[in-house]
C-alpha cells in the first residue's frame, strides 16, 4: 500500500468509526431518555392513582367509624426542640428506627434531632454497602 492509500484508508476509517460509534450511542441516549421518561411518568401516575385511592378509602372509613382510642406508643414522641430543617417524615423514620433498636420494654424519649455537618458513619456504611459489589 502506498502512502496515499494509507492516508485514505486511515482517514476513512477514523471518520466512519467516529460517526457510527457516536451516531449509534447518541441514538441509544435518545431512546433510553425517551423510554425512561415514559416509564417514570406512567409509574408516577399509577402510584399517584393508588395513593389517591387509598386516601379516599381511609377518608370513607374514618367518616363511617367512631373515633378510635388513641394508640399507646412505647416511644413517646416529644416535641422536637431543634428541628434544624428535619422534616416530619425523617422524624418518623428515626423514631421507628429507635423503637426497632430498643424494643417495647424500654421507654425512650427523643428530645432533639440535629443534622450533622460532617458525613455520618451511617452514610459511610451505606455508601460502602452500595459500592461493595464492585
Amino acid at each position, binding site marked *: 500500500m502506498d502512502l496515499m492509500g494509507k492516508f485514505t484508508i486511515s482517514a476513512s476509517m477514523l471518520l*466512519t468509526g*467516529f460517526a457510527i460509534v457516536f451516531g449509534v450511542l447518541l441514538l441509544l441516549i435518545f431512546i433510553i431518555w425517551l423510554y425512561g421518561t415514559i416509564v417514570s411518568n406512567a*409509574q408516577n401516575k399509577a402510584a399517584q392513582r393508588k395513593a389517591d385511592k387509598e386516601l379516599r378509602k381511609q377518608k370513607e372509613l374514618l367518616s363511617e367509624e367512631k373515633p378510635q382510642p388513641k394508640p399507646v406508643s412505647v416511644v413517646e414522641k416529644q416535641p422536637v426542640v431543634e428541628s434544624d430543617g428535619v422534616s416530619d417524615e425523617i422524624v418518623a423514620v428515626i423514631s421507628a428506627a429507635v423503637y426497632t433498636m430498643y424494643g417495647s420494654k424500654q421507654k425512650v424519649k427523643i428530645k432533639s434531632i440535629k443534622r450533622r455537618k460532617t458525613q455520618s458513619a451511617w452514610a459511610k456504611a451505606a455508601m460502602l454497602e452500595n459500592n461493595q459489589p464492585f
Partner: protein
Amino acid sequence: MEILERFWKAIEGIYQGSGLIQLDWRNYVMIAVACVLFYLAIKKQFEPLLLLPIAFGMLLVNLYPAITEAPQTTLMNAAECIKAKGTTEGYATTVINNVTYYNVPHYGGLLYYLYQGVKLGIYPPLIFLGVGAMTDFGPLIANPKSFILGAAAQIGIFITFIGAIFLGFTDAQAGAIGIIGGADGPTAIYVTTKLAPELLGSIAIAAYSYMALVPIIQPPIMKALTTKKERAVVMEQLRPVSKLEKIIFPVIIVVVISILLPDAAPLVGMLMFGNLLKESGVCDRLSKTAQNELMNIITIFLGTTVGATATGANFLSLSTLKIIALGLIAFMMGTACGVLFGKVMYKVTGGKVNPLIGSAGVSAVPMAARVSQRVGQEENPGNFLLMHAMGPNVAGVIGSAVAAGVLMNVLK
C-alpha cells in the same frame, strides 16, 4: 548385553523426545515471560483470574508444543498399517491409482480442541453472557449521557488503527490491533479471530496485560489532563431506576444494535441476554450459572488456550513488539479521549460532572471505574465516584462492541 542395549536405546529415545532437544531458546524466553506473568498475577494480583490461566497456557505450550498440535491423518498401505498399528481393521480406506491406503488418524493435542472455542468465536460471546448477568446497567439508565464518554473512549481504537497502518500492517490486522484500545478482552479476541487470526496470541496477551495494568496506566493520564478542582467535583446522586426500565433496557439495546450493526449482534446479544436473565428476576438459576460456573469454565478455557497461542516462534517477533507498543498507545488514547470528553461535559454542565469518570469509558469493567473512584478520593476522601463511573464503564462495553461491529463490517 541385549538388555543393556535396549535400556540405552530407551534412554536415548526419551532424551531425543525431551524438551532438552526439542525446545529452542525462544521457548525458554517464553517460559521466563510466563514466570513474570505468574509473579504479576499472584504477587501483584493484576487480573489474576485471567493472567494466571494465560501464563499457564504459555508455560505449557512452550514446554510441550505438541499440546496444540492439530489432528492429522496419515495414509498408510496395508503393510505399513499392520507394522504401525498391528491391524488394518477399523480404518477408513482411500484408493489412489488402484492402491488401497488406510487412513490412520493422529489425534490433536488437548489445547487444540479447547482452542476451537476461541477460533470459532464461541468463548467471547459466552463470556459476555456472564458479564451481562453480572452487570448493573442502572447507572447508565439513570444517566444516559454516560454513553458519550463510552463512545469517546473508543476513539483510541481508530487512532491506533492509523498507527498500525503506517507501521506496515494490513488493514484487517490494523483493525484487530486497534481493538486493544477498547480494553475488552473478549471483544479483542472475537475481532481478531475474524480479521487477523494469525495475530491472536500477541493481541490477546497485549489486551489482557494492559487491562491488568489499568491501575498503573490510567492515573498519570487522568491527573495530567485534569485540574485539582475538576478532580474534586462531587457529583449529584443518581436517580433511582425502576425494575421495568432495567428489563426494557437489554431488549432495546439488542434490537437497535443488531438492526444497525449485525456484526456486533453475537457480542451485544449475549451481553444483553445475560443482563435480561438477571433483571427479569424469574431466571435466578440461569443467571447464577451464567455469572459463576459457566463464566468460570469459559475463563479457564479461554485463558489457557489464548496463552497457548504464545509459542516462542509466534510471539518473539518484531510484529509482537509493534503490537505491544500500539496496544499501549490505544489504551492511553482511549483513556485520554474519555477524560477530555469528561472535561467537555464538566464545562457544559457548569461543573456538575467530574471528568475523572471519562477514563472509565474504556470498558475494563469494573477496574476502570475503580480507578476513577480511587483517583477522585485522593483529592476528596469523601467523594464517591464509583457509581457515576460505572455508567461510562458499562457504556464502554457496549461502545467497544459497536466499534468491533464497525471494524468487522468495514474490514472483513
